[in-house]
């Protein structure tokens, strides 16, 4: 391996710095959530789970939105990098929604005395995990990169479009009546300013974590695409040594 190729593999300096900033901000967020913010009137210290849980859940939905956005871009202009970005975001969406389910179960065991409730948002997240797993299964079954990108982009768009309906259905399912008004902000629960501030700060940090992994995964995806193209070039023309094909 030459120095030139090794340089390509390495994570750039600014990303390492960014990671250090995230770790520091994460510590601040943990301090705000665990020490600085007041305990809840009803739930006491259990409310502190909420800061991690809700911020991760929000970013998980943002990640699904970005997946569908990049998928649509891929269908529109057929650039391989859009597919790489869509996958990167989908992987983060799967991670964040899985964490949301774990967080939700941790949260509902002491507060509601059960691991699983058919709560609208929890049900929606569980469906989202199932939808994202389907997305990755489809990807794993197609070898041709162009067809894989196109087919999985279709799946991603259908998934994103189904989320509002899944939300409505899950919400109405729980209340048993469809005429209830819908509020996406936690059913108008009033929150102390310190609590809201802590939640927003933790969401901001979770967003930074998402963005960091997104950038890093796209970097890896670009390398994967290059490697695949180089390998194909070698197989097609075995005589040309070290022929590098850029994508």
């Amino acid at each position, binding site marked *: 391996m030459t120095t030139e190729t090794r340089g390509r593999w390495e994570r750039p300096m600014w990303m390492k710095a960014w990671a250090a900033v995230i770790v520091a901000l994460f510590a601040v967020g943990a301090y705000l959530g665990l020490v600085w913010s007041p305990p809840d009137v009803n739930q006491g210290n259990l409310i502190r789970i909420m800061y991690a849980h809700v911020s991760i859940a929000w970013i998980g939905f943002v990640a699904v939105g970005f997946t569908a956005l990049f998928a649509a871009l891929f*269908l529109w202009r057929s650039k391989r990098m859009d597919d790489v970005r869509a996958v990167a975001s989908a992987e983060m969406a799967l991670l964040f929604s899985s964490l949301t389910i774990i967080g939700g179960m941790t949260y509902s065991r002491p507060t509601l005395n059960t691991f699983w409730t058919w709560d609208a948002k929890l049900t929606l997240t569980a*469906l989202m995990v*199932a*939808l994202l*797993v*389907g997305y990755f*299964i*489809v990807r794993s*079954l*197609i070898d041709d990169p162009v067809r894989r990108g*196109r*087919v999985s*982009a*279709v*799946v991603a*768009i*259908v*998934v994103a*479009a*189904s989320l509002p*309906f*899944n939300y*409505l*259905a899950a919400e*109405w*399912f729980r209340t048993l*009546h*469809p*005429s209830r008004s819908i509020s996406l902000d936690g059913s108008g629960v009033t929150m102390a300013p310190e609590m809201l501030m802590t939640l927003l700060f933790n969401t901001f940090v979770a967003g930074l974590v998402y963005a960091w992994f997104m950038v890093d995964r796209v970097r890896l995806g670009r390398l994967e695409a290059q490697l695949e193209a180089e390998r194909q070039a070698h197989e097609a023309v075995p005589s040309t040594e070290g022929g590098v094909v850029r994508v």
Partner: protein
Amino acid sequence: MNDLYAVWLVARKDLLQESRSKAVTVATLFFSAVTLVVIAFAIGQDTRLLREAAMGALWVALAFASVISAAQSYQADLEDGAFDALLTTPVPRPAVYLGKLLANWAFMVVLGLVMLPVTIVLYGAEAGPHWPWLIPTIALGTLGFALIAVLYAGLTANLRARESLLPVLMFPVVVPILLAAVRASGALVGIGDLELATGWLLLLAGFDLVYVVLCTAIYHFVVEE
């Protein structure tokens, strides 16, 4: 050639093919009936419980039947490269999708209307005064199933493990359809609550509308060679 006429031709081709082979008819009819019986056995002999579960069982049976119907409609086309030949004709891709959708939907509505009285008898449910509303419920619910099933069946048609893949992909997307259809028909049988059912029917209609537009628009990415 008019595009709407092309839609009709594709639908007619699928329905004609089915009327001659009867492969899907036999499979889905008996499959749905067996599903209904199996669920009834699983629930047990409690008549009240059976009556309450009736509409849920009906829609589970219809959901599985829609998977079989959509998968089969591509299976027959893929043999001898008939589907490729269809794509080389000057028929726009959306017309192919809408044609297949129309054929599948028509088939599913008939199946639903056959299975509805079977369910009512088998589970001891009462039709009640609002029973005519069950017909639009079946129409809207099966349209929702067919929309997703036909799109995803085209997507999985030449993949490995397509038999298990199609329901895995489709069911999480149609959860709102299943839920709304079960709730709406549950509110319509027995004494009935028309107001409650209308809310769910509107959700069904909204879902169908959004997905007709979306699936028709992105279908050509699925079948493009």
